[in-house]
């Protein structure tokens, strides 16, 4: 069974996000004033081969925790997953 996962990795809330801040700061000069709280993270898509959905999800969680994110500074969440061919 093959499943497609979408994972978001973003800096922990406590940490200042330099990219988000820079975008935020430049918006007004471009005429976008009503925007606040910009945060930028990584969006990672991948396909997993596994017996069951649980197995696939466990594998992705493990990978996200140990490799795709750095727990010292980042959190991750699995946005969505669906079966694919």
């Amino acid at each position, binding site marked *: 069974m093959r499943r497609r996962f979408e994972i978001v990795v973003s800096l922990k809330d406590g940490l200042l996000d330099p990219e988000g801040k*820079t*975008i935020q*700061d*430049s918006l007004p*000069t*471009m005429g976008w004033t009503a925007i606040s709280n910009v945060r930028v993270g990584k969006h990672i898509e991948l396909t997993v081969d596994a017996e069951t959905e649980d197995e696939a999800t466990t594998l992705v969680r493990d990978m996200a925790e140990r490799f795709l994110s750095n727990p010292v500074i980042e959190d991750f969440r699995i946005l969505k997953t669906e079966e694919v061919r």
Partner: protein
Amino acid sequence: MIDKPVHRELGLTDEEYEAIESRLGRRPNRAELAMYAAMWSEHCSYKSSKVHLRSLPTQGSRVLVGPGENAGAVDVGEGIACVFKIESHSHPSAIEPFQGAATGVGGIVRDILSVGARPIALLDPLRFGPLDQAHNRWLMGGVVAGIGQYGNSIGVPTVGGEVKFATCHTSNPTVNVLCLGFAPRDRLIQAKAAGIGNLFVLVGAHTGRDGIGGVSVLASRTLDESSHESRPSVQIGDPFYEKLLIEACMEMIDAGLLVGLQDLGGAGLTCAVSESAARASTGADIDLDEVQLRDRTMEDFEILTSESQERMLAIVTPEDLPSVEAICERWGLTSAVIGRVTADGQVRARLGGDVVAEVPARSLADEGPEYSRPMQPPAYLDDIHDDDPTYSELLMDVGEAFRQVLGSPNVASKRWVFEQYDSLVQGNTIAGPGASAAVLRIEGSLRAVAVSTDGNGRYGYLDPFLGGGHAVAEAARNVACTGARPVAVTNCLNFGTPERPEVMWSFAEAVRGMARACEALDTPVTGGNVSFYNETEDSAIYPTVVVGVIGILEDYRLMLRPSFAAGHVVYLLGETFPELGGSEYAEVVLGKVSGRPPGLDLERELALHRLIADGARMDVLASAQDCSDGGLAVALAEAAILGETGFAVTVPGDLPPHVALFSESASRAVVSIAPERVESFEALAREHRVSFARLGETGGPRIVFDDLFETTVAEARDVYEGSIPGFLSARREAG
């Protein structure tokens, strides 16, 4: 609407199509047509420029490889060949500045690699529209970040370049990149598919639908609204993979495993195979099924013309194949044997067993069309020549004019740009960004190579002949101001639409001017690049000649820097004439780009270079800084700011002060000399027949132009360093 015949869709004229038919004695199939369209495009065939480029001097005792190869090479001593070439990537950069510029770096680096040299330095001459427009800030930010990301990641230092600004570059930025490489002179290799039965090995990235027809669409047609269609033709660079490619190729070259090496650039596999075969008067049997694809559904003509980045074509003997494959394996690169060298001079491509294309290698590589396009001087020239800014009076305090010129983004510090580049990696950067020219040490020796790029678009606009000459003279002067002897030239000719007689005339004039200067200065042209169609319906760029000059410094310990130190005597070398035509002063203070550029006396220019070289060797000079944009005033200010040392000078001669200060008369330099060396210097200058004027002394925190005006080094630095950051304040903005 009825659609055009497919050859016109591909950018081929009816005449060109007929030429193909008669060459083949039959109608080309689609794959063959795509191959010809790519190879006969302006970008690959130089069909409009060839006739003119032939007049450039290319001979010289030091020249090891001249134009025609992937990059030129000169003997710089110590058994070392210096390989160098410049290339344009302006069109992709105009629509995707980051990736457009990044892939430009990747491409020129592979040119150097294909001659067998390790890339050791990059320079990036850039031209943008005025920074008060967000679109231009977006372009510059993206281009600089892209060059930085690619160059920094592959471990090649970016040590110099230029950034200039003019309204004509708003829709057409100019992005040129020069790469320098070193190789043992007896280890240079050629991009030749020699030896019947030898193997074509495609090394590096998988082949995808990148820049299909990109060459003809992106580089050979004017960018207009329809450039939206050409969008997918912009490619994504992978500097990491390029770094692996460099190291793997260097290992193969050092182990002597390569018969030949050819980069894949414009026209992809078609160009690499046909050119390497044509050079060796051989042919090629290519099996497209062996090409590793990113997308299995690619068709024959796509595989043949794909411009996927980070690929090289190695020509290898069957015996050496295992060693080559082992090196690729070790560096994590894919490699595939995609064909063999044949005797019959044909490029034959197979897919699924069938022959999908069969054409003579020469017909693609060497027998492309060649045009002597109509030429005509632009109408604007007469009026603009009559309006000579030299004689319009200065309506402000000369000190204020000084601040305006020094703070003009063309003149002001480019630190915001070059601090984004690793200029130190490889550990041989004796002088980097901020010097008159960059100086790179030949490791393990006292020898070094100096390199500078220069070009003045305004001069090219007002007089393309002088524009071409000045570009060579100024770049050589920058090199000479380090104490090095200029020895060779590469060039990038950035112009509008060659079908327009005015553009073609300017092009021919610029080449003529460049040729004249190269002959007089004994700096042969070893290569270059032509970028046409830098034009959108509303605006064409100035005729922009960008010249890269390299020079040799026998002992880098005697290298000159531009910066002042306290307690020295300041001299101006060369003569100042009332020449404000096309000057920075005229544009910034008077808002005029008019008149005629300064004259250029190549005898004087050469004498100046020889004097500075001797002065450096005999250690009579403490510093040297060329006079260019902004004239004497800016040269003195830069030397003071760089050395954090002030000066007090009297402006010599009887010209009006603002003319003496801002005239851009050529063949001049500001030097400083230790008091005890003054006599020997003056004797040397007389010997070289270079006129000189004693201006004053260095020292202290103040900048004093006798009774004209005065300021401090700190104030001047704030103007000089603050200008460009003031426009940008580190913001990324969209256009």
